[in-house]
C-alpha cells in the first residue's frame, strides 16, 4: 500500500504524550514513527536500554507505553529482547499464547554502539525474530553529552571539550549499520526523519515484518547535545541526508540498496553550521578540519555507492 502521511499519523499512538522527553527531541519522533510500522491488529513487546527514552517514558507509577514494555539495564537490551522472544517461541509452542507479538528493542547510541554492543551482536547473530532500533543522537545525552563511538569527528562534547589544544573528538565515528550488516542478518536499514517520515515508516514496517533479526539505525538529533534551534530538527535531518553525512540505505539479505541519491550533494558545512557542537570549526584557521570531515564523508559515500552496485 502506498504511503500516506495523513493515514499513517492517524493510527492510534503507542507512545502516549505526557512523557518527560525534551521539546524538539528526535528520539521520541523516531520511536513514534517506528511504532507506526506495526499493523494495528498486532501487539508488541518493547525492550528499552537505559537511556533518556527509558527514564523519561516510564517513571513509576506512570508509563507512556501502550504495549508491554521491559527495561532491564543499560548494556543488555539485545539479550533481554532475545529472552522475551525466546519465551514467546516456547509459550506459543505450548499453546499458552493466542495473539501475535512483535519484538522491538530501543537503545541510544551509547547503549547500542558501545556498552550494549556485545549483547546486540549476540542477539543479531542468533537471528532472533526482533528489531533492534538505535536512536542515534551521536553522544551519551542522558548523562550530559559525553562522546560515544557514534560521535562524529571534531564534535564538541563534555568529554572531548574544545580547548586551546583540542578541536573536539579526534576520531572517526563507527559505522554500525555496516558492522551489523556483516552479521548476515535478513534486514538492516539506515534512516532518519525525512520525506514526511516515509523512509522511516517503510523501513520500520519492513524491519518489523521481516522474519529473523533486523536492525534500524535512526539518526535522531538532540537539541541539547547538538545545539540547534528546536524547530529546525527536520531541516537538520534533511541536511544530514543531502550532504551524504547520513545516507539512507538498506541491506536486504546481503544486497545493499541506496534509497536516496541527492540531485545536488550539498557541502558538509551546510549540516555543520546550524549546530553549536561544530561552532569552533567556523573560526578562521580551522578550514582544514572541515576539509577533513568532507573528505571522510565523500570517501564513505563513494564506498557505499560501490557496495550498492
Amino acid at each position: 500500500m502506498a504511503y500516506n502521511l495523513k493515514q499513517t499519523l492517524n493510527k492510534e499512538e503507542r507512545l502516549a504524550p505526557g512523557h518527560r522527553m525534551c521539546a524538539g527531541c528526535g528520539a521520541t519522533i523516531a520511536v513514534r514513527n517506528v511504532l507506526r510500522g506495526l499493523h494495528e491488529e498486532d501487539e508488541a513487546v518493547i525492550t528499552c536500554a537505559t537511556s533518556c527514552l527509558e527514564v523519561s517514558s516510564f517513571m513509576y507509577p506512570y508509563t507512556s507505553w501502550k504495549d508491554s514494555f521491559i527495561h532491564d539495564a543499560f548494556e543488555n537490551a539485545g539479550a533481554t529482547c532475545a529472552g522475551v522472544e525466546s519465551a514467546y517461541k516456547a509459550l506459543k509452542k505450548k499453546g499458552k499464547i493466542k495473539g501475535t507479538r512483535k519484538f522491538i528493542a530501543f537503545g541510544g547510541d551509547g547503549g547500542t554502539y558501545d556498552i550494549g554492543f556485545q549483547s546486540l551482536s549476540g542477539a543479531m547473530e542468533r537471528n532472533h525474530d526482533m528489531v533492534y532500533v538505535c536512536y542515534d543522537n551521536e553522544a551519551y545525552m542522558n548523562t550530559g553529552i559525553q562522546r560515544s563511538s557514534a560521535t562524529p569527528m571534531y564534535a564538541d562534547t563534555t568529554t572531548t571539550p574544545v580547548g586551546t589544544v583540542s578541536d573536539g573528538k579526534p576520531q572517526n565515528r563507527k559505522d554500525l549499520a555496516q558492522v551489523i550488516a556483516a552479521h548476515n542478518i535478513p534486514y538492516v536499514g539506515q534512516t532518519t526523519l525525512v520525506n514526511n517520515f516515509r523512509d522511516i515508516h517503510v523501513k520500520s514496517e519492513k524491519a518489523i515484518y521481516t522474519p529473523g533479526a533486523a536492525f534500524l539505525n535512526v539518526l535522531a538529533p538532540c537539541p541539547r547535545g547538538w545545539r540547534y534551534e528546536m524547530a529546525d530538527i527536520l531541516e537538520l535531518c534533511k541536511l544530514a541526508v543531502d550532504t551524504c553525512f547520513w545516507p539512507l540505505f538498506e541491506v536486504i539479505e546481503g544486497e545493499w540498496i541506496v534509497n536516496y541519491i541527492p540531485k545536488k550533494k550539498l557541502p558538509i558545512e551546510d549540516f555543520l553550521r546550524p549546530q553549536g557542537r561544530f561552532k569552533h570549526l567556523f573560526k578562521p584557521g580551522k578550514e582544514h578540519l572541515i576539509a577533513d570531515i568532507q573528505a571522510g564523508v565523500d570517501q564513505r559515500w563513494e564506498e557505499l555507492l560501490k557496495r550498492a552496485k
Partner: protein
Amino acid sequence: MAIKERLSGNEAVANAMRQINPDVMPAYPITPSTEIPQYFTTFVSNGQVDTVFVPVESEHSAMSACIGSEAAGARTITATSSAGLALMWEVLNVAASDRLPICLALVNRALSGPININCDHSDAMGARNTGWIQLFAENNQEAYDNMVQAYRIAEHPDVMLPIIVCQDGFITSHAVENITLLEDQVVKDFVGEYEPEHYLLKDGESIAYGPYAVTNYVMEARRAQMQGLRNAKQVCIDIGKEFGQISGREYGLFEEYRMEDAEYAMVIMGSAAGTAKDAVDALRDKGVKAGILKIRLFRPFPAEEIAEALKDVKYLAIMDRTEDFETNCGPLGSEIKSALFNKNLRPLTLNYCYGLGGRDVTVESLTSVFEDLFEVEKTGDLGEVYRYLSVRE
C-alpha cells in the same frame, strides 16, 4: 518407584532440569558448570524437553535473557560458576527487584585471582546480597533434591524471587555418587505448571517492567522485596516437608548432626559438611559431645533458628569457604555471631577460612578445628578469633 542411579552432581542437576522441563534456558559455558547446559542441550536435541535453549554470548547476556524470558511469562533456568556469576552481578539485582522467580544452578568455584577452577564459595558469597534465595548442598543427592524444590520456593506467591541452587565445584559436580531419582511424572506433579499472574506476553493485557523510580518509591519497593525474601524461609520449610512426603527425604533450613547434647559445634556449608560429620563421629566415639550444624538455606539467613539450635553450645567453630576481605571474619562468621548476639548467647567462637581454590578439606583438618576448641576450653583464651585452616604461612 524411585530410580537408583549413579550420577555426577552436574548430571543429577541436569536430570532434575529435564524432569522440570522449563520453558527457556539461556546459558553460557564456564568450568565446572559447563556440563549442565551440555547435558541439557542433549535433552533438547533429542526431544526429551520442550525447552528453547538460547546459546548467549556471555553470562551477562544469559542473565539478561533470563530476565526478559521470565518477565515474558516463561519458566526460565540457567547455570554458571565463578566469574560467570560475577559478570551477572549487576543484573542479578534487577532479576530480584523485578520479582522474577528464575532458577540458577551454581557450581561453586573460586573467583579470580589468581584464576583457579576449583571449589570455594566466593562466587555465591559475592552474590549473597543481591536478593536471591540461596540453597547449599552437601552431596549429589541434595543438589538434585534442592533443584526439584527450587521453583516451588521461588514461584510461591508470598515469595516471587529468584533462587540459586549451589553445589561444590568438582567435589560434587564431577564426582559420581549413588543417588535416587524421582520418577519424571512425580517431579512434574510436584513442580506443577508455571501460571504467573501478570507477564509481558499475557493475552489481553500489557504490563511494564523496570521503571525509573524517584526517591518517593525506592524504599517501599525494597521493603516489599525484603518481605518476599523473608517469607521464603517458611516456604522453604513447607516445601521441604512436602518433598519429604514424595521422596522420604525431608528438608529444613539446616541439618543438625549429633547436636542434641553438643557442647562443641561446627557450622559449615556445602560438601565439607560430609567430612565434618566423619570427624564428629570419631570424636563422639571418644565421648566428646561434638556436633555439626550444616546450613542449607543461606539466603534468607535463618538467624533466629540457628541461634536457637546453638543455644546450649559452649565452644563454636564457624567455617567460611571464602575470604571476604572483611579482615575480622567471613560472612558466616559475621552473620552467626550477629544471630547469637541478638539472643544474648556468647559461646566461645572461632571463625575459620578454609578450602579456598579447592584446598583439600580432610577429616584430620576438621578434627584439628575441634582440637583448637579444646585448647580454648583449657586456656580460656580465644587467641586469634579469625583463623586460616591448612595454610602455609
